[in-house]
């Protein structure tokens, strides 16, 4: 007799409403270092329109002296993705920011053994040896 597991509901993001996965993006830069030059230009000119277009993301700007510039994305599954943008141009940084925004926190190293996950196993039914060869006299 199998034990009864307590039943829980599983979230299906997108079925009813879509909840955006990227919660917060933090920008670190250094005032003095040369590697932050592109980052500083990005923060001055490109960041505010980006934040306006994406009100669902909390944008944090923090100076981090004597360190390379860093972009950290925090996601709803508690994972983080960090990209160092040292010596990059503002347009390159914009692409990276878009990448971080469009991502979920799922690890990129994980191989997808099952690319499609679904509650309905198959439309046409699962094969059974008893229903394939109808008996004929």
């Amino acid at each position: 007799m199998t034990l009864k597991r307590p039943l829980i509901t599983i979230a299906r993001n997108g079925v009813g409403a879509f909840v955006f996965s990227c919660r917060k993006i933090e920008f670190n830069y250094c005032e003095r270092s040369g590697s932050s030059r592109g980052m500083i230009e990005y923060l001055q000119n490109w960041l505010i329109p980006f934040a306006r277009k994406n009100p669902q993301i909390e944008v944090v700007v923090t100076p981090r002296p004597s360190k390379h510039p860093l972009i950290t994305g925090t996601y709803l599954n508690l994972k983080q993705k960090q990209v160092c943008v040292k010596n990059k141009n503002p347009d390159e940084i914009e692409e990276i920011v878009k990448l971080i925004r469009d991502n979920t926190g799922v690890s990129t190293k994980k191989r997808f053994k099952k690319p499609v996950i679904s509650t309905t196993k198959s439309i046409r039914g699962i094969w059974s040896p008893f229903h394939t060869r109808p008996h004929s006299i």
Partner: protein
Amino acid sequence: MFSLVKSYSIFNRNISLLILRHTCFVAIRPFSNSNTFYNKKLEEQNKIVRKDVISPALNAFAARMRLNFSDPKILLQAVTHKSFTDTNLPSNKRFKELGKCAIQLYITEYFHIKYPLLHTNYLKDVVNIYSRDGTLSTFGHEIGLNYVVRWNESTDLYTSSTATNDEDQLGPTDENESPVLYESRKTTVKIGHVVARAVQAIVGALYLVKGPNSAQKFVQDHLLSRDLNVQQQYDVKEPKRHLSALMKRLGQEPPVSRLLYEAGRLTKEPIFVIGIYSGTKKLAEGFGSSLKMAEFRAAKNALLNHYFKEIKDFTLPSTIDIYQKQMSYIPTKVCDTPATV
């Protein structure tokens, strides 16, 4: 929204000023890497004490869940737990009471119409699973509500809503008089309850401010879209007996089981597939390693097919707009109660 960190550096690139000029709302967080006396003094001077300010996280949360309240204080009130005293706003208690009932209503209504022939106990179980604190707290964590709720961890006693909806509530229950009070040292448990209440409060606030339809949409989109295998719960000890009673109740021919396919009868691992028929109509099939087992499963499947019948297209009574005269409400057929043995 933005959160700016103040920099005390000499080389001012005017980033802070630029951002301050452009954004409508900025939360200033002091950056203190060094512990110099000068910096500390500056911090104290520049410390701005603001109460009831919407944090950037809360703004982002509202945009993520598409809650646009006309008055931003309402959302702030909805996420304020009663333990949070550093505020001029009332707590989310009133919103939570209304939201709790609204959630219960919309979930019950949905499953009542979706599974018209379901036994009441199972209906209650399903509704309970969707609307209990655990599910709401999980949902709240998944949308990032735990970073946004305003609460105070220092109070030790948190009322739990383990007094289930099935049990009779003795009169009007006041939270102070509730017999179920427990201490928990784990933050995760405490914040779970806070988050669950916040979810209920948000639904309540939506109901009050934006109307019942808005609240119903929220519940349907976020809570009812969650997946649950309802049929897994069905537990019946004597399915053949129940099926006989059901056929009698429906006025159909008594069920007869017939062996459809078999393989390996005399081996270690036989398979039998038995179909249960009412007259010439096959009710269900079941497989098993013995004839009895297959018959049991067939009867159980027949009962599942009947009682857990789903209706796919229906209109919920709560979504009907009273002023829309063109739309005529077509009620779903009121169905029979389960057959008793």
